């Protein structure tokens, strides 16, 4: 079990390095992040035993990443700057 997960993680690492050398336009970032998230999920589910954890552990670990997204919503300000002409903001 652990060895299989380990194999997947190594393959993910190699894939991500290879993918970085292929020009896919904006898709590069998407692929990179998908691989990184998959690897992180594998570690969390298997190495960190969340797969077998209580419901509370699921909720706590999910809440952490959810709040991270809330923090990242700060980007909304930067994307929407300049939408109102003439105001520079």
């Amino acid at each position, binding site marked *: 079990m652990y060895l299989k997960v380990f194999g997947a993680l190594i393959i993910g690492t190699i894939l991500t390095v290879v993918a970085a050398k292929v020009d896919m336009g904006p898709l590069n970032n998407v692929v990179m992040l998908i691989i990184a998230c998959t690897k992180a999920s594998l570690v969390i589910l298997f190495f960190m035993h969340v797969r077998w954890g209580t419901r509370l552990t699921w909720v706590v670990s999910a809440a952490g990443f959810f709040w991270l997204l809330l923090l990242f919503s700060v980007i909304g300000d930067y994307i929407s700057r300049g939408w*109102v002409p003439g*105001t*520079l*903001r």
Partner: protein
Amino acid sequence: MFTNFPFFPEGASAQAAQVDGIYFFMVAVTAFFSLLIAALLVLFAIKYHRQHEDEVGVAIHGALALELLWTIIPFAITMVMFVWGAKVFFDSYRPPAGAMEIYIVGKQWMWKAQHLDGQREINELHVPVGRPVKLTMGSEDVLHSFYIPAFRVKADVIPGRSNVLWFTATKPGRYHLFCAEYCGTKHSGMIGWVYAMEPSEFQVWLGGGKPADSPAAAGEKLFTDLTCITCHRDDAQARAPQLKGLFGHTVHLQGGATALADEAYIRESIVNPQAKIVDGFLPIMPTFQGMVNEEQLLQLIAYVRSLGDMAAPKPPAGAAAPGPGKD
């Protein structure tokens, strides 16, 4: 010394009435609910005052309908406040076309203003009544905030970028100008006066004194001194985009994107020229970050702006194609 102190600020701009309108509404709501709660507390406290040491209250566990009522009603009231407030905010930050332009630079601890005709003033600002005035503001050091209470307008002045504020003064007079964002030791000394004048008086004031170069003229001089002109030329040998007729138009960038040539775009093109490369040109322009101060930057922007109204001569192939104007 305790004579003649106000309890309500003078309102001397078109925005003032708008802001005061929300204010009165909110004061009314606040007063109503505060008094309601206070009255209920007093009433209940007296009416149900404990009579015997071993007395207990009536076990009431709740009433869903009532609780929903006092969830929904406040929600409805706050949504009125939200929409109203957002509307006023939106209006008071979107400058109307044809507003009179003034450039403002904040630095520790003074306000510098320059009119388009070249008049400069420090810690004072003369404006005509009845005409929209648009301030384009930058900071040379830290955050400041340009605040005229009587006009109910305020905007932070941020180093590294321009910010815009506009108002229409409605009543002649002398009004406080404050720095509202804490900026260091003499923060409370970064104050001044705004003089709202009748248009005729304003013209007289504008004509008085010895005007310096207008911001655009100063910018043109800088444009030559900094040798910008060697690349940004009008002829076919230009190695950089044509600036005539640029401002307010859409620019086609390398990679297919477009950008609107506004103050922010011009500023970025000066301090970080590599950020957006105009289609058909090489990324050869050096940065002028640190070589021009905030005031000079605003002058350069004013110059490029003044070129915006000129008809662009035949652009070199691939250079900024004229797009629809924003005004």
